[in-house]
């Protein structure tokens, strides 16, 4: 069956794909989003909801600044989503902590933040607190915490409501989102344009295509002449029963969802595509939580899960235009929550070539060319 041709087709209806779709719609384009199966690997449905800058890009200035731009753009973006979708994503940007129980890790992180500050200049804002100062500020912190960093720029949203808000906003702007439409292969057409062959046999023809399929991009990138190879990185998380009162802090590993549950996470492992939660890591996460905040000990965990991060070879975003097949774009990143306001705005300018800003050269995939050739 041949289908009507929309202008731009986005492959992948996760946070990244929907953000890009929204940006293009706001720029006046016609957009269609194709999203895969219910049980695909979906980082967008398993993440931690942080809007986080601390330490980001300490060894890669463009990323440090790109992240800082995103943090600044969030309040207006959340407002825009609310207006388009009627959904409140519960943005809270009142600052976040990074807790340490190991003095050498604390020192190493301070060095990273110092380095990051050299890229950010006057925009750098963080402070280091030793354990005792921290406990003075926040009496519930456990005695084994040796220190913490704090940045007033950091925050979080409700990640699941955020995903739904994006989808509803895209739909409200007239974007078509088709779920259960797994793209199996992409065939660039001789005269330009692309034929997207779906797993169920349908074919979607499109003039331009943006590949935002998370881990699904791994098998499709080559069809468009891209060399980026994304890899899964397992993160494990716990969620507790809901609490009526609020935790006094937000940290990169312990956060309370606006609905009341406490989410604990932050682990990293290479487990291939295995996203099962493991007993040891569950126990480790629980130990971390009660070490940082002992009052959590009697709060019950209702579910543990694993989710796969989408990682480029160096962990930084990839924004690439295909040279072999003009009209094809690759957008992938790990911190899809944090960067969403930029994906939904300036990235559209970059795709449409409508404005000289921003300079995204640094995120091109040519940086992998050497290792790819090796």
């Amino acid at each position: 069956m041949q289908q009507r041709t929309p202008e731009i087709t986005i492959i992948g209806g996760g946070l990244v794909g929907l953000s890009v779709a929204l940006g293009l719609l706001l720029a006046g384009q016609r957009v269609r989003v194709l999203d895969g199966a219910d049980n695909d690997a979906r980082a967008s449905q398993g993440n931690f909801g942080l809007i986080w800058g601390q330490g980001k890009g300490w060894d890669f200035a463009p990323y440090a600044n790109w992240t800082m731009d995103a943090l600044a753009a969030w309040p207006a973006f959340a407002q825009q989503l609310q207006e388009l979708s009627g959904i409140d994503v519960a943005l809270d940007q009142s600052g976040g902590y990074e807790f340490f129980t190991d003095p050498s890790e604390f020192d190493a992180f301070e060095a990273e933040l110092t380095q990051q500050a050299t890229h950010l200049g006057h925009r750098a804002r963080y402070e280091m607190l030793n354990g005792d100062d921290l406990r003075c500020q926040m009496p519930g912190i456990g005695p084994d915490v040796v220190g913490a960093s704090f940045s007033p720029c950091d925050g979080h949203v409700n990640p699941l409501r955020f995903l739904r808000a994006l989808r509803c906003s895209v739909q409200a702007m007239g974007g078509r989102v088709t779920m259960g439409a797994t793209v199996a292969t992409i065939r660039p057409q001789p005269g330009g344009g692309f034929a997207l062959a779906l797993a169920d046999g349908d074919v979607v023809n499109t003039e331009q295509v943006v590949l935002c399929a998370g881990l699904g991009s791994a098998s499709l990138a080559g069809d468009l002449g891209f060399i980026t190879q994304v890899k899964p990185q397992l993160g494990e998380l716990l969620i507790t029963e809901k609490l009526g009162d609020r935790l006094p802090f937000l940290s990169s590993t312990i956060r309370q969802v606006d609905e009341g549950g406490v989410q604990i996470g932050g682990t990293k492992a290479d487990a291939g595509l295995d996203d099962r939660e493991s007993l040891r890591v569950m126990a480790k996460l629980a130990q971390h939580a009660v070490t940082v905040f002992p009052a959590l000990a009697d709060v019950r965990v209702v579910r543990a899960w694993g989710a796969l991060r989408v990682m480029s070879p160096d962990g930084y975003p990839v924004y690439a235009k295909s040279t072999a097949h003009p009209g094809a774009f690759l957008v992938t990143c790990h911190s899809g929550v944090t960067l969403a306001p930029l994906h939904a705005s300036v990235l559209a300018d970059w795709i449409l070539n409508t404005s000289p800003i921003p300079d995204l050269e640094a995120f091109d995939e040519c940086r992998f060319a050497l290792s790819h050739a090796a």
Partner: protein
Amino acid sequence: MNVASRFRTLPETGESVQFTLDGVPATAPAGVTVAAALVAHTGAWTRQTAQGAPRTAYCMMGVCFDCLVEVDGTPNTQACMTLLGDGMTVRRQTGLRNLNGGHDG
């Protein structure tokens, strides 16, 4: 609202235990669960949801989690899976539990 129990307890012989429900002393046969004792005691709610809806023990077999009450200071205890002990303090819950025990309202 005070609602009479929806059950009649058979007059069987046997030991009984004392407990309190929201501070009021009460008695139940030994060997029953907290949920059974609560339902024998009142036909009214024993928990209010986050949105304020009234609930009481439903499945009696540990599946539904509608029987959550505070037992001896521990909130969100599954009453149908907890044997009633002599001297237990049972409290109905309104809204979500709090961090250091207790609950809203």
